[in-house]
């Protein structure tokens, strides 16, 4: 009797398993076709680290206070600084990020008081040569140009000021990157691409402006 019971329950459960897989045959796949479809990275994503610049002047927000370098658990950040004799402000002369050791913990972003460093949702940073993973200051600034961010201080004020400027800045493309603190949900890919293009030009102009 036991054998009969075991056999019938066995057959039932085998068929049940078949039913479960058959059911799934008609469900929509949940995976993404990666290079064609892309995941929309959340606001807080901790991917590539960038240095943020002031949207108006195009200069780095960094004041070389060394807080991030101190907070970094793996000592990935190297900073050298100088003091501007006129404004009495510190500015970095060297800012290197060693992404080979970086663990993307985000402690540098949490430590920063000047909106200077940010972990972004950019994730395609594989290279064929290891030495390219040592990010220099210019590069970090360049990839950070199109990053939108909210100012920790004076956020609301700046956003209002920058809002009208943004349109003119983008169209004329004369003034460097008017990527403001404005928090708009502009999600479509095309818009982003357009921004990449426009922000591409100020990239070269940015440092020139500075030297002038």
């Amino acid at each position, binding site marked *: 009797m036991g054998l009969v019971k075991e056999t019938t329950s066995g057959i039932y459960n085998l068929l049940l398993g078949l039913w479960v897989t*058959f059911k799934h045959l008609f469900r929509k796949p949940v995976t993404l*076709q990666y290079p064609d479809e892309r995941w929309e990275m959340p606001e807080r994503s901790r991917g590539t680290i960038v240095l943020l610049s002031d949207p108006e002047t195009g200069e780095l927000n960094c004041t070389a206070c060394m807080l991030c370098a101190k907070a970094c658990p793996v000592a990935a950040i190297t900073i050298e600084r100088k003091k501007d004799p006129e404004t009495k402000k510190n500015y970095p002369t060297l800012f290197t990020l060693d992404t080979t050791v970086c663990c993307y913990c985000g402690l540098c972003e949490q430590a920063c008081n000047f909106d200077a460093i940010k972990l972004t949702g950019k994730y395609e940073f594989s290279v064929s040569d290891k030495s390219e993973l040592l990010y220099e200051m210019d590069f970090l600034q360049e990839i950070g140009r199109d990053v939108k961010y909210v100012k920790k201080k004076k956020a609301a004020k700046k956003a209002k000021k920058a809002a009208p400027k943004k349109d003119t800045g983008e169209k004329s493309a004369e003034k460097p990157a008017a990527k403001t603190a404005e928090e708009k949900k502009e999600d479509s890919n095309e818009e982003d691409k357009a921004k990449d293009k426009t922000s591409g030009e100020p990239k070269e102009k940015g440092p020139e402006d500075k030297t002038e």
Partner: protein
Amino acid sequence: MLELRPIFDAIGEFLNSILPEFWVTIVSAFGTGAIILGVASVFVLFFVWWERKVSAHMQQRYGPMRTGWHGWLQTIADGVKLLQKEDLIPRDADKLVYLFAPVVCFVAAFLAYVTIPFGEGLIVQDLNIGILYIIAITTFTVVSLLMAGWASHNKWSLLGGMRSAAQIISYEVPLSLSLIGVIMIAETLSMVSIVVQQEGWFWNWYVFRQPLGFIVYYIAATAEANRTPFDIPEAEQELVAGYNVEYSGMKWAMFFFAEYINMLTISAIAVTLFFGGWHAPAPFLDFIPSWIWFVGKCLLSVFVLMWFRWTYPRVRVDQLMAFAWKFMLPLAFVNIILTGFGIYLF
């Protein structure tokens, strides 16, 4: 109609008109061989793609999507990749045996197609011992797996080879016995005659007279083809890849090829013996060519095999043996006895 037999007849007549009889035999032998090889290769290419798609959709994935429409060229791309791969031979391997193992596997898998009727009249040679021949020739696979496992000089592959020997020989017994019921009813060993006897409506199919025999056959055949849940010779999780762990490139592809060919073989046998071969389920559906019915039934059977694979865990080697000897074999005997009674009574 789209029946293929007249085309082959026409080719035969044409050859007869231009060549002496001896050469006709030679040319037609090679020709049919090439056709079988080609048709089977196409099937294998399709099965590999299909299996990927079936498994993917059962798991809510897409599967291959990038080469061709829904990745239908993926298998060809993989084949090209396998051709380009470096062909490694382990230093301590028994080279001759190592090289011949995939060949034996490949050839044994193909030889079964001599007596499989793909459609009305589409058979290479209607042997009067057709079933016996197929049973004999498919067992050859075990030799090749044992050769591969032994010659690789790897402990994992040796274990895989030993497992396959034990498994296939064990399951050969219930497999052969399960077919005896059909033979008793049909009173012939010829594949064509068996198909002809199942003509008409679908209730003439032998599966309705031999349900037990069919179940035993199908399970044993799954084991013969090394498909999950009986794929213990190559259990990836235990034996890494079993008998073919040291094979790479085209040699590995030949094993792979043979596995999928075997899947088609067992489906074709099941269709021929139990599901009316090339016959339509109802006489009024006869306008569809016979070979389409045959292929369609085979594909359905192959789908069921894939379905099994992507649903069940793998059984353990001792349970597999116990299942064969303690469950399948008695069941096959019961089937024979019942069939005998049935024939005696009706």
